[in-house]
């Protein structure tokens, strides 16, 4: 009898233990034993999230990899082939990361020049186009004469692109430099490259330019420019009234317009997943070679 009772109590205890185990497993509350796997998964998620973020960050550095959002001009096969060609070109020549407002030096092989090469230094005032048709415009003032040169980014005649000063400006396009005082777009051709320490975010130059008096090339007052300081000085009452009439404050709420202007994030992540690895490898190789170059031993001079 006593034996039977003991057995039943044992059974009940075992059942209770099992039940408790089961309930613990089923419960949403985290158990001490199960913490490490949960942490791991969250870490994995976090890593994936950060990786995704890093991949999406490259859209600022390499905007030409994204296709034109106009659906009439989309062709997935052409885009893919173009991306492959762009990577091929990037493996041949170092095309650095630069933004509108950066100062660049571009050397091209020029059959017209006497030395067969031509170097131009200037501030990047515009980047446009996508794929192999990507181009940028440099502006400089040489001998009091404003000059602009447009280059294709993937032009095979380009020998080198060097970033002399890596920075951004307050606006997306700097066409107002054409109407600004010449000192804002004057850069000497023997400028030394300024090296940013690794890992720093791209600095934004908050300089505000002064415009020359009218007539201007465009109606700058209607474009809501941040990089111009003295625009109000040159305006008449008539211009202010017309600016008010021409304002389109509803456009920032126009979701369809925004959608048509941009590539959706799903498409973007596909593209970046395709090219991100190779871009990273190219960057690493470039860094390695740059480091090697800095540590080369100086040549011993004979005699």
């Amino acid at each position, binding site marked *: 009898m006593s034996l039977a009772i003991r057995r039943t109590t044992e059974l009940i205890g075992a059942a209770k233990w099992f039940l408790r185990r089961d309930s613990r497993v089923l419960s949403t509350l985290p158990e001490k034993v199960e913490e490490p796997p949960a942490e791991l998964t969250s870490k994995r998620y976090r890593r994936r999230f950060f990786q995704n973020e890093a991949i999406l960050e490259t859209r600022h550095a390499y905007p030409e990899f994204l296709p034109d959002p106009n659906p009439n001009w989309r062709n997935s096969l052409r885009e893919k082939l173009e991306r492959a060609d762009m990577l091929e070109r990037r493996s041949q020549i170092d095309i650095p990361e630069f933004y509108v407002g950066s100062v660049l030096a571009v050397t091209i092989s020029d059959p017209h020049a006497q030395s067969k090469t031509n170097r131009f230094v200037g501030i990047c005032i515009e980047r446009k186009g996508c794929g192999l048709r990507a181009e940028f415009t440099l502006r400089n003032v040489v001998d009091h004469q*404003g000059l602009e040169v*447009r280059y294709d980014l993937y032009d095979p005649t380009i020998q080198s692109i060097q970033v002399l000063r890596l920075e951004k400006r307050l606006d997306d396009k700097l066409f107002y430099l*054409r109407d600004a005082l010449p000192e804002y777009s004057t850069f000497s051709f023997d400028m030394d490259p300024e090296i940013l320490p690794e890992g720093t975010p791209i600095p934004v130059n908050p300089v505000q330019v002064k415009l020359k008096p009218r007539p201007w090339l465009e109606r700058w007052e209607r474009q809501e420019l941040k990089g111009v300081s003295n625009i109000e000085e040159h305006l008449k009452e008539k211009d202010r009234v017309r600016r008010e009439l021409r304002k389109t404050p509803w456009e920032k709420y126009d979701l369809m317009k925004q959608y048509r202007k941009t590539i959706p994030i799903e498409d973007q992540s596909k593209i970046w997943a395709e090219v991100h690895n190779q871009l990273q490898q190219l960057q690493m190789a470039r860094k390695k070679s740059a480091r090697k170059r800095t540590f080369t031993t100086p040549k011993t001079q004979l005699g």
Partner: protein
Amino acid sequence: MFKAIVNKLNPLQLSCSFHTTACLNEVRLLTRLRVVDNSEIGKRAMSEGKPPRVICVYNKQRVGYIGDRVLVAIKGQKKKGILVGLKQTQKVKVPKFDSNNVVLIDDNGTPLGNRIHVPIPTILRTILKERTHAKGADYTKLLAIATKFV
């Protein structure tokens, strides 16, 4: 269509009598140019604030492109010149200038001045060599007085 609707709705305020597209900045008849060499007549015309005007462009299109020969009216005289820099949008790798520049030459292609004080596009070297024929006018003398090429 949209414009038509807008005009119907509001004919007074939004009439499209003006054009809002960017201008082409072409060099054609009666365009004012900037003389960039140091010839006496050119310097005087520029300092007086009476820059020369185009009265003929010697090509079929009658629109001056880079390296084209033009006839200008300057200080009451007719002089020939060569366009060495244009405001118009140029091809890739060809510089676009902030002003329409001209260098005055005589009938043989010899420049009137002896120094050009602004940069000259390198493509002009090829263009002017092509335009120069033996026994004709020699335009390449202009390249010799240039101070800087871009």
